[in-house]
């Protein structure tokens, strides 16, 4: 390449390229390693199929359904982690929304078109509050969302009086009657397409698509990556850092609320203890997918793969009747293995 003025097309062709480079780059990409982890777990499923249970479609349907609530939380978590933050409050917000949604739908008889937006707004408000404190007062996200985690759990218990909000309604004379399960609960907990696809799974997949649009197709998403990659450079490039952080946490709150709706519908009640510890599973999913906790790298596709990996792992262990205690320990090992696999990329 000569030193003179070059045409545009030539200018980018200056560096030497080898034919194997794209292949190697593909194999080293986070997507490839996340897929590898998923394939490894699926291979386990074929090896230990639980007397053929793994080969049945319903097993896969249920694996996806059971992973969906975690996956929805992980979608919201992805936004926050991409900005190099963390949100520990999503499990508690899930519980708070489950209680609120049950109270509004069963006891207050709010119609779904009022109750659902109200619950989403509640979740979003919790997240936005965390985001405001993180962005404006520059307190570490870990601390702020830890506080929100405790607060939201307390609010859930206050609203429910510490009791599960169920369809059992106490009458004026002290007797208990069963209220009908609200239609919206039954809708969310149902299956479509000849019983083959759970509505909850569809909600999860919609969350994935929505998140993908925000992260990959909107200016906001680009800003979130920039903030996570180099906050100072982002600020000096005119990125509204504070507003974007508030948005990321608010989105995490909204997704936690969606998960809360699903949880309430599946359990047909609002349990103030619902979602306890779910935030850690959500973080594990995001990290297993390969989104960096340092921020700036990752994506929603990786979170989808991470959700499937964790979901299938859990399902395979349960169809093989591995006891709960061993399941937890095995999950821990898989998490570390997956993250070690990812680390080569960073």
């Amino acid at each position, binding site marked *: 390449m000569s030193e003179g003025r070059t045409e545009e097309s030539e200018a980018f062709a200056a560096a030497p390229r080898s034919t194997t480079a794209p292949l190697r780059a593909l194999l080293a990409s986070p997507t490839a390693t996340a897929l590898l982890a998923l394939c490894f777990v699926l291979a386990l499923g074929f090896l230990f199929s639980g007397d053929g249970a793994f080969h049945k479609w319903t097993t896969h349907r249920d694996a996806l359904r059971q992973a969906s609530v975690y996956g929805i939380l992980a979608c919201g978590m992805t936004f926050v982690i991409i900005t190099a933050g963390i949100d520990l409050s999503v499990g508690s917000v899930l519980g708070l929304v489950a209680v609120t949604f049950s109270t509004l739908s069963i006891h207050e008889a709010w119609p779904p078109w009022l109750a659902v937006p109200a619950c989403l707004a509640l979740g979003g408000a919790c997240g936005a509050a965390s985001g405001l404190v993180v962005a404006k007062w520059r307190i570490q996200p870990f601390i702020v969302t830890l506080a929100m985690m405790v607060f939201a759990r307390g609010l859930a218990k206050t609203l429910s009086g510490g009791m599960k909000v169920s369809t059992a309604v106490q009458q004026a004379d002290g007797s208990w009657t069963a209220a009908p399960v609200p239609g919206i609960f039954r809708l969310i907990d149902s299956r479509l397409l000849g019983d083959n696809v759970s509505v909850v799974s569809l909600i999860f997949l919609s969350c994935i698509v929505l998140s993908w649009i925000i992260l990959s197709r909107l200016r906001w998403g680009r800003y979130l990556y920039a903030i996570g*990659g180099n906050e100072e450079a982002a*600020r000096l490039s005119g990125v509204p850092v504070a507003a974007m952080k508030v948005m990321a946490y608010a989105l995490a709150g909204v997704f936690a609320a969606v998960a809360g709706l699903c949880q309430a519908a599946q359990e047909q009640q609002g349990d103030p203890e619902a979602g306890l510890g779910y935030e850690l599973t959500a973080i594990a999913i995001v990290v297993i997918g390969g989104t960096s906790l340092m921020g700036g790298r990752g994506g929603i596709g990786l979170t989808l793969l991470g959700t499937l990996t964790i979901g299938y792992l859990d399902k395979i262990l349960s169809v093989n009747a591995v006891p709960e205690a061993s399941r937890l320990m095995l999950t821990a090992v898989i998490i570390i293995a997956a993250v070690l696999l990812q680390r080569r990329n960073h």
Partner: protein
Amino acid sequence: MIFMAASPPCTPTPSLLRMSRISRAFGAQQVLREVDLELAAGEVHVLAGENGAGKSTLMRILGGALAADEGTIAIEGRPVRFRRPRDARQHGIAIIHQELSLVGPMSVADNLLLGHEPSRAGWIDRRAALGRARGALERVGLRLDPRRPVGSLPISSQQLVEIAKALSLGARIIVMDEPTSALSEPEVRRLFARIADLKSQGCGVIYITHRLEEIYALADRISVLRDGGLVATRAAHELPAGELVRLMVGRSIGEQAPRRPSSEGEVLLCVRRCRVRAGAAGRRPVVEDAPLEVRRGEILGLTGLEGAGVSEVLWALFGALGRRAEVEMEIDGRPARPTSPRAAIEMGIALVTNDRRRSGLVLSMDVVENATLAALPRLNPLGWLRRREEVAQTARIAGQLRLRCASLRQCVSTLSGGNQQKIVLAKWMATDPRILLLDEPTRGVDVGAKHEIYLLMNEWSARGCSIILSSSEWPELLQVSDRIMVMHRGRVAALFRGGQATAADLLRAAMGHAADE
């Protein structure tokens, strides 16, 4: 006669430290070339040189933070080799930086004895610790309760604590790198008195400063570094100020920056007042005042030595310092208040910072994403990314800048310094700015890219943009600028016309010497 060779070499004053033929390169850039430095016991040896002359690199090698490619270090005649900072400390070398290495919330005593606590069977002996701390403080003339947290002390006292710490670890060679940059005049005098004590205790002090008055108040000997080489080592009384300045700047002018006709447009940017408070409480303001005017199509050079506040002026005009900065300015005769970088960008201001990896680029993103980051609202007014347009625009600008990269989807961290800098420039070209603030835009880029960046600046100014160019490469600054403003300790020290000043004029003004003599 045979026995003479075996006897130890005899020198008139005992040599405490001798660095011989030290060389070091970073990549292709030779930053130190066979530098010799000698320090005697009881001597203050001033190390002088412009920004980038190699002073810091030499001291990092002495401190064990960096390995020399070639050369030897001998302490009291014995050769030593430092693999890590701890090795240097064990040989009695202490480096006092501008940023102190004390743990703020811990007490003075704990800081002094950190890692060397007197203990009995694993329990810290509090009384012995306090006693030792008091002794160490006395040596530097500090009278205070060693149980106070270090962070509660004024910066000058913290510095003395740091020196006391060095002495308590047995340091005999003390390097001070610009120790007075954050001190008031009385504090400076107090520090100088302590330095005199150190001399009388037989310590050697290597002192780095940019201020002439300090050099002549302290120095026994002066060594001048220029472009990585040692130019001279002389006794202070044999080296008058004029000669010193001449030695510091007298370098060959490398790449000739292209000259262009200077313009006489109307004033585009007029800064009436610019003040920047220090980041930490209790320090003097970084910028006291820097009023300036830039005409349409004009390139205003802005320079000063480290700590003069040059970068801070640019950041303040860009709204990047938030409430720390108080700026009153007008653009095109209308009052403008850049309260945030975003607001400044909307006014047509662009800032190229002096550290592209820290504040210029998002290294985890690709070329297109970086090059469009500042212009996203204008490229995608509805918030929906128009990726094809982004690529097309980036390709167009990259072509103008002659950017070399394998793909526009390449991660910018894999590109060379010059190409990374071009991406920073591309980012601002995309916003179509009227006022460009360039802070060391040619730092760390190769000669070819440097030339292209200067051509680009000429192109911008021909289009009627106003440019403020900060640079410590004075020959180039002199070539490119229409006028040059020199700052010293947060104030405007002098203003020169581009063609009429010399590097020596700039240096004299930057070091706080009166402009006309």
